[in-house]
């Protein structure tokens, strides 16, 4: 029973196909249940972000899990689109551990060093935990991965220079407008991404904006904290906001695009072709792709941010190299710990079992008159005793905290390395 990871990300799968991997809350539960059904996988966790879709499992039946995932998504894509081998990557055991650590450390992110993935991974883990999809092994991996993610951020400068999806989005806007603080900016959506964008806007000197969301009471505290003036609009007033704004940033979770070609085309006539920037950070996309073909409309989605991410990635290259080395070391340590822990449990079982057998044999030699029923009862009694003695130490070894230390103590205590 080992780690098995299967996924698709921005490197392997274009946005229009990644959209098909985006599952709602209920669908995520249903999907994980399918994987765990019939014991195909023992544990499961789903990491789904704008840039990646990854399923972390504990399984012995890699083929079966792969087959189930393939069967789940193949009906959502056309035959031409569904190029499984090209889109999907998978890793097992050590490679899966290393990949998870790299992901949480944002070394595999579109923007190297971004912080968002850490909270996204944490949410994915909490989701699996809350729905009892993850168990001991995945919990170990997830908690260790989160620890590695934090360590990388504190021990390297990979995240020091603020580069996020929000700041990249504003860099793009800067290619069209000289001063964003003189423009009308609207934020559509109120999730984590919106918060990031809001911080980036504030850093760029924008101190007033229009906020459009389904529910309008959530973000007021954030605006107050950031000392920003804002006007709020309900989502059904989006068109009137579009008429007045120069830059709109979308991050809503929607089933259908909010803005279509026809709507924006009409608005552009009314705006007398005044430039309009639409930055669509939502998955599925909030703005129809064809809107970008309109003149004076500049539309960017998550994939477009890749270009600037590459430029920024250059600057972060040195830190990323150091972070890669550190992540590899930490992954190796984790693998050794896992291996050492497993070995120690096996050695403990073996040692106590041998002791038990010897003592039972001695006793039986001294008491030849014992009938078979009593002999069997003695066997069971001693077996149960050994299990009870081993229960606490094994629990200790299975716990993430101080595992290496506990392993060493137990090995010394039971003299496991002397034989």
């Amino acid at each position, binding site marked *: 029973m080992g780690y098995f990871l299967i996924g698709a990300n921005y490197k392997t799968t274009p946005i229009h196909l990644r959209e098909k991997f985006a599952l709602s809350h209920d669908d995520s539960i249903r999907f994980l249940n399918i994987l765990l059904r019939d014991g195909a996988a023992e544990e499961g966790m789903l990491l789904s972000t704008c840039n990646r879709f990854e399923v972390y499992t504990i399984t012995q039946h890699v083929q079966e899990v792969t087959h189930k995932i393939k069967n789940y998504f193949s009906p959502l894509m056309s035959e031409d689109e569904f190029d499984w081998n090209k889109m999907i990557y998978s890793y097992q055991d050590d490679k899966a551990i290393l990949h998870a650590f790299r992901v949480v450390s944002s070394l595999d992110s579109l923007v190297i060093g971004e912080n968002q993935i850490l909270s996204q991974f944490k949410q994915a883990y909490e989701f699996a935990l809350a729905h009892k999809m993850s168990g001991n092994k995945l919990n170990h991996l997830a908690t260790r991965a989160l620890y590695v993610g934090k360590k990388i951020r504190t021990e390297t400068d990979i995240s020091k220079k603020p580069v996020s999806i929000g700041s990249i989005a504003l860099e793009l806007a800067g290619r069209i407008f000289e001063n964003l603080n003189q423009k009308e900016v609207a934020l559509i959506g109120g999730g984590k991404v919106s918060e990031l964008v809001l911080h980036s806007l504030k850093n760029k000197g924008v101190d007033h904006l229009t906020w459009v969301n389904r529910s309008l009471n959530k973000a007021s505290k954030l605006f107050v904290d950031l000392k920003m003036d804002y006007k709020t609009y309900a989502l059904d007033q989006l068109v009137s906001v579009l008429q007045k704004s120069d830059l709109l940033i979308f991050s809503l979770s929607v089933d259908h695009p909010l803005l279509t070609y026809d709507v924006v085309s009409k608005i552009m006539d009314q705006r007398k072709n005044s*430039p309009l920037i639409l930055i669509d950070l939502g998955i599925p996309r909030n703005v129809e792709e064809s809107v970008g073909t309109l003149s004076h409309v500049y539309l960017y989605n998550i994939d*477009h941010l890749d270009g600037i991410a590459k430029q920024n990635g250059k600057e972060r290259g040195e830190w990323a190299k150091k972070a890669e080395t550190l992540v590899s070391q930490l992954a190796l340590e984790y693998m050794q710990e896992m291996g050492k822990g497993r070995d120690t449990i096996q050695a403990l079982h073996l040692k106590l079992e041998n002791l038990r057998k010897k003592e039972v044999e001695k006793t039986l030699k001294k008491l030849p008159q014992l009938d078979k029923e009593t002999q069997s009862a003695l066997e069971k009694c001693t077996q149960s005793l050994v299990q009870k003695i081993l229960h606490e130490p094994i629990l200790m070894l299975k716990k993430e905290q101080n595992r290496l230390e506990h392993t060493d103590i137990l090995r010394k205590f039971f003299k496991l390395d002397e034989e």
Partner: protein
Amino acid sequence: MFHSIKEGMSENIPVMSHFVVIFGCYLVAFFLFCLRLITGHSSLSLIALRWTLISFFGHLFLLSFYFQGKGYPFLSNSFDFLQVMSLTIVLVYLVFSHFYRFYAAGLFLLPLTLVFSSMSLTKIIASTTPGHFFENPWAFIHLLFVSIGIAIFIVSFITGLLFIFQEIRIKKNIFGGFLDRLPSLESLDQIYYKSLYLGFVLFTVGIITGGGWSKSETGHYLQITLKPMLALGIWIFFAIFLNLRKPLGLKGARGILLSAIGFLGAILLASISNGL
């Protein structure tokens, strides 16, 4: 040096050698911009810009002495006209680079200066002392405004092309390189229209003074010949375009492409005026 320039007024060759030096300076500035593009060393931009500034002052200095020591009215031949145009292009470029992040445009505007400069150098030997026609005070004012106006129109046109080029890059999501140093589309649009308005004002003054020149020489403000008719046509075109631009929403690439008709007319006018 000044003495030799003054002497050179009667003998064209020594004067040409000084202008060739200036041409060489602009050529070096252009190569520095090219080098910046190839190597990616950002410090080269500043060096190139400073070298252009030095070359400009050298050019201005040389042209001033040439103007002072000229034995016949300034701007009365193609050499003068083209030299003023090349100097104006560099001046407008330097002014906009001071107010906007426009220095990367040197890669596109300096070749124009080089073209006008080299064209003028081929004309200098052919330049002859003009007749009384150019001694009329209206002539100098008219030719000065027209040459500067056309040069600014050309800068405006190149900026317009840069806008279109940059917009294509943005739409196609092309990043990186020296061209990322161009100002935002908003700034390019502002530079484009500011230079267009300025060029139009100067061109208007040029047309009015041209009418004055014509009246004093022929007794008529307007003659039905190709040059004044073309100039008037260009003026009317730009007057209509600039007035209807905002109400019709002729912004960005669409407006620039439409105004290209006027620019082509201006180039044609400059060519006819200089017998090119």
